[in-house]
């Protein structure tokens, strides 16, 4: 009996050691070894989803494994951010997040903290713009501003209270002394209808959607927020320093505890993807811009700056967590 006990103990300890050493076996094989899932927090068919799918194709090309784009809709990106924050930190679950995720930590709706996420880098920039119907009385942004200042209470449409667009536009209205009143809608198509049907004076929403209407001659773009389209007036050109600006971006994120070398591999892949002309052309054709900011700069400069601008705007709006 003693011998069988001894040998079974021996066998068990061998198996145990083998089992324990398995993860190190896997780690010796270079990441990535299998398919990666890349999620976006918005529904299929929209601007965010489009960026996500383009990024997935780019990553697949430069990392040599299948990258599967998916949608985790909910709360304007909150559900996805929670998911990434609590996902297994092995670099196989990635998220394409937008600034709405940062906003949610300030309003208190997020069930995660920015610290639970590890930002790998910025992947794309987009623009917001103001559109008005083609037969509205304002032909230039200056005409509109003069009108708004003389007649406080001009209505603008936006995609939802607490959305990045809403917050940014309120920022312009308050600091630029325009006295605009916001009318919330659910999503870009409703805004287009409201603007073209002249139920509101202007609409604030994604440039990629506005350009389509402007090119068709149905609407006029009065202003672009960040000046990414040089043919249109930007906030800084029109308002100077009185209205703070921030970049509108999408960034790639993983769970906080993801090992450093995995993050480094992802970051290097991102550099290659964002420099790839195929990626750039696909985005540009749809009025989105490729851009890249590395992980270190994101964490040390970009995100803290954005947080402070957002706080300064959201405080007076009453949107901050109590």
């Amino acid at each position, binding site marked *: 009996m003693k011998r069988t006990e001894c040998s079974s103990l021996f066998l068990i300890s061998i198996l145990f050691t083998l089992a324990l050493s398995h993860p190190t076996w896997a780690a010796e094989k270079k990441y990535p070894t299998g398919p990666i899932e890349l999620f976006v927090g918005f529904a299929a*068919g*929209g601007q965010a989803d489009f960026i996500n799918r383009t990024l997935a194709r780019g990553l697949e090309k430069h990392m040599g494994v299948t990258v599967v784009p998916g949608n985790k809709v909910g709360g304007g990106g909150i559900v996805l951010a*929670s998911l990434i924050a609590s996902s297994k930190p092995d670099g196989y679950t990635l998220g394409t997040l937008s600034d709405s995720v940062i906003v949610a930590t300030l309003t208190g709706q997020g069930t995660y903290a920015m610290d639970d996420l590890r930002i790998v880098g910025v992947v794309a920039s987009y623009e917001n713009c103001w559109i008005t119907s083609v037969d509205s009385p304002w032909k230039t942004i200056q005409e509109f501003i003069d009108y708004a200042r003389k007649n406080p209470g001009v209505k603008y449409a936006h995609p939802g209270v607490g959305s990045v667009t809403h917050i940014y536009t309120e920022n312009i209205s308050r600091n630029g002394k325009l006295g605009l009143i916001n009318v919330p809608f659910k999503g870009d198509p409703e805004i287009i209808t409201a603007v073209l049907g002249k139920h509101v004076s202007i609409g604030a929403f994604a440039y990629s959607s506005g350009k389509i209407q402007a090119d068709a001659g149905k609407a006029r773009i009065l202003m672009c927020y960040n000046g990414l389209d040089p043919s249109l007036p930007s906030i800084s050109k029109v308002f100077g320093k009185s209205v703070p600006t921030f970049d509108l971006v999408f960034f790639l994120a993983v769970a906080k505890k993801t090992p450093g070398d995995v993050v480094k591999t992802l970051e290097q892949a991102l550099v290659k993807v964002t420099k790839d002309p195929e990626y750039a052309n696909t985005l540009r054709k749809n009025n989105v811009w490729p851009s890249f900011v590395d992980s270190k700069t994101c964490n040390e400069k970009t995100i803290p700056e954005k947080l402070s601008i957002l706080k300064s705007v959201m405080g007076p709006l009453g949107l901050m967590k109590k």
Partner: protein
Amino acid sequence: MDIFAGILYGFGVSLQHLNLLYCFLGVFVGTLVGVLPGIGPSGAMAILLPLTFGLPPATAIIMLAGIYYGVMYGGSTTSILVNIPGEPSSVVTCLDGYQMAKKGRAGPALGTAAFGSFIGGTFSLIALTFLAIPLAEAALKFGPPEYVALICVSMTLLTYLARGSTVKAVIMILFGLILSCVGLDLVSGMPRFVFGSPSLLDGIGFVPLTMGLFGISEVLKNLQKPSEKFILESRIKNLLPNLQDWRKSIGPITRGSFIGFFLGILPGGGGVLSSFVSYTVEKKLSRNPEAFGQGAIEGVAGPETSNNAGAGGAFVPLLALGIPPNVVMAFLLGALIIHGVAPGPTLIGQHPQIFWGVIASMYLGNIMLLFLNLPLIGLWVKVLKVPYRVLMPLILLFCFIGAYSINNSVSDVIIMIVFGVVGYILRRFDYEEAPLVMAFILGPMLEAAFRQSLIMSDGKFSIFLTRPISAVALVISALLFISSGFSYYRKARSGARSHGSRLGQGQNPGVYSNTQKGGEPISGA
């Protein structure tokens, strides 16, 4: 390119081998997706989208469009056979379609649904071809105040959905309104009834709600009372609608086509609102409204026609203006963009092969669907022969997979189960789910439009009366409300006089809030 040249050109495009093949693939997948509860057209489109990347844009859109209206055909199958709506737009078909199936008339129900869908779909296509551009412009005039008025009209019709007690229907409407409040408030962005759960931030999902209320509760009910048997008709002659069915259905089909198409154009429209309005209109116009809810074929013909007509109508703003009126159309828009086509008013001019090709392919698709669905009726009816102890678990399985597949999220499945239990309890006490579901959809639309209108008017209520469309619709709604109030009052009085002993049972047709034409009260039970 004028219209007739365009149509001919479109048929030229759509009859090419590649486009025919993908059209068939689309409608076939759409029918399957429509039959399976849970997974909806957007889910199927998302999965099949990568398939389209190597294809020319017209072909891609032909296939995706095929999925959309194919779903409208297939959704009625499970509604009729097992009282589980395969699609939100088939919820209303459950009311009478299932009753018909229980009486052994599943075949005619399915056949009427198929023919009605075909006629509705074709009608909306013809209207789309000729009226797309002027209609799209007119639809722009519908702003928030007009929506308020339109939904007021719809809400006064809500009580017509009820088979039994009106009081219970009103309770269900209120319950539906409360449920619809869950989520983020539109104007303040503050969460309501969310209880700190991120999965409730976007509200209770419509699909898990209906699948639970109708599907899971049906399974639970059958567990409790397994003795209900289906009468089966196996002779082919009885599998198709007979002449009498046709005579009864012509009116609903015609009206359903118009109602569906025009409601489908409006943002927020599409299949659901169209089917519901058609049902209530048919019930109001019918000579014996108490047959509704017991297996009236008009209750299948009207809604099924209008949900397909609504699908066609939904293409109007998308193709003409680049504005998607509902989620599925938004997906098509995204697909167009991915293929490098900018949708919008320039689509017709710059990409005529897409505009006319897609329209022509929809005609062909509708014909394909009719041929696909009719012969299958015999097959579907045989499903009812499957013993319940096999059928019910299968249904449960499909519901679970379906609910999970919406967002790959377990919380949707949990919501479905919760509402399955709720639905079972409601049924035990003779409460009906249909008014709850419609209130659940209409409530948020009404609230959003109302608050947007007041912001637009700086708080003045007069905005609803100074705008012509909204004023007219509000007057109609008021008239409808008063007229149903009158007939309810008259009914209650005559009911109290002659059927005093039967008032308490909740079955007295005198308690219905509708009446025959001419205002004659319905006598007898």
